[in-house]
């Protein structure tokens, strides 16, 4: 069986800095893969490479066995991989509905109806239907994260790359967003790769976790195993050789 999304020896060097260095990963259909690691480990670079925002220095990204790395971002979206940003970037001058409609015009056309109808459906799904006419600026951060999610979902992705969706918002909203992420996987049959610093969320949502440090994958496995890994503890806590 080929993986839905796979990275092979994926590397990105910025001058002498190896932001990402020979990372392999596989994502199965319907899977949630957590990506954790200290700041500067290369997590967001990994996403940028998979979403087409950056070209890899070496290695490739495969979707259903077809290479997508090196394609421009809008083509990667059409192929079925879409990302959200750690710092939300709604179009500030467009209403929430318009924000999502722009996205609904693109991507795989699995759903029927006009872009606007599809956008409304997605807004209902993420619980923003009553805010459709608002500008994103008046929403809470959690609300804007939902706009970001809705925009990504409106492209009908096969793989959703979530960059710290849960971090930085209040606990109640965080719980609701975690539930929403699970609902996306279960009801929309979308495989998810999520970068997250909020450990309880990663541990409970992920089927599998990979750990990055200094651009390299240092561990991979079930959440409960990974947190016990010696290398992981060293990367996070700086435990010496004692």
């Amino acid at each position, binding site marked *: 069986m080929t993986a839905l999304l796979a990275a092979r020896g994926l590397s990105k060097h910025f001058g002498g800095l190896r932001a990402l260095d020979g990372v392999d990963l596989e994502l199965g259909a319907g899977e949630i893969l957590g990506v954790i690691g200290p700041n500067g480990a290369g997590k967001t670079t990994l996403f940028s490479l998979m979403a*087409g925002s950056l070209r890899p220095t070496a290695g490739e990204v495969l979707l259903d066995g077809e290479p997508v790395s090196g394609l421009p971002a809008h083509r990667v979206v059409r192929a079925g991989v879409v990302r959200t940003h750690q710092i939300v970037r709604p*179009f500030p001058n*467009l209403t929430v509905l318009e924000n999502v409609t722009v996205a609904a015009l*693109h991507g795989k056309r699995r759903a029927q109806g006009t872009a606007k109808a599809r956008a409304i459906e997605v807004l209902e799904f993420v619980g923003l239907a009553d805010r459709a006419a608002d500008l994103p600026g008046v929403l809470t951060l959690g609300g804007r994260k939902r706009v970001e999610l809705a925009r*990504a979902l409106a492209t009908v992705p096969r793989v959703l790359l979530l960059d710290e969706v849960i971090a930085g918002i209040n606990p109640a909203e965080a719980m609701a967003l975690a539930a929403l992420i699970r609902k996306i996987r279960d009801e929309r049959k979308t495989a998810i790769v999520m970068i997250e610093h909020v450990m309880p969320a990663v541990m409970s949502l992920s089927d599998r976790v990979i750990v990055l440090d200094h651009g390299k994958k240092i561990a991979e496995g079930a959440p409960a195993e990974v947190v016990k890994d010696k290398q992981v503890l060293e990367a996070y806590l700086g435990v010496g050789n004692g």
Partner: protein
Amino acid sequence: MKPIAAVVAVLALMPIVLDLSAYSHNLLTLAFLMISGALAWNWMGGFVGQVSFGHAAMFGVGGFVAARVIIATSLPAPLAWIAGALVAGIAAIGAHPMLRLRGPYFSIATIGVGEASRFVFTYWEGFTGGASGLSLPIDADLKYQLYWWGLGLAGVVAAASLLLRRSTLGLQLLAIKADVDAAADVGVSATFYQDLIFCLSGAVVGLTGGLYASYFGYIEPSDLFGFDRSIGFVLMAVIGGVGTVLGPALGAVVFVLLRQYLVASYPQLYLGLYGLLLIVIILFEPLGLTGLGHRLWRQFRKVRR
């Protein structure tokens, strides 16, 4: 859409019902041409947010191609104008490499390309007649009728602006303007839409150039390709309100009247005065007359309450 049709209808009847002086007839015809140009400029400068200081290049290409077609063939003038528009639209696609630049960098590049085109066409005497220009066959009837041709074009371009803004295409242009990377991340190809809009905008400006050539009967590269013509498109949009749907039309009317006065009274200074006007508007009312109108309307409602 209805208000546009109403205004066009009234203006269409005006020369028939009223006894318009030749002076007013002339100013209105010029205003109609500039309205089309300013609205088309605004698709790129306002909707996509890429401010071009080089639209004179397409105006000139459209004008000279139309003139050459009229001189060389017996085709009716409208077909020659369309030929000019097509060539101008195709020439605009040549801006593709520039469209990877954004903001001020794009603007600076357009200044370079606009000026380069002026030099090329001034030295290409075989095509443009060089510094001495080109004369078209005299056609007094057509000159008079250009009032309605110009009005029709302005009406169509205004309607197109409105449709464009309300369409999903317009929505994507606004997304590109707001955040080009975030737009790409939801599947919007900024390159494709910018090419498309620059091509359409260039074609309409080229069409305007063709009508302009027929109207004056005599054209020269330093006028059609001139830098102050490019500045003119920017200024009309800024006066009326950059990025607003129909503001640039209002700006074009003000600009034509203003230019008429300034060129006559301050022939040495008028470019400097344009610059001053640009600065004042951008400092105090970035949305131009449209913004001013909204502000006054809000004041008025507050007072009434």
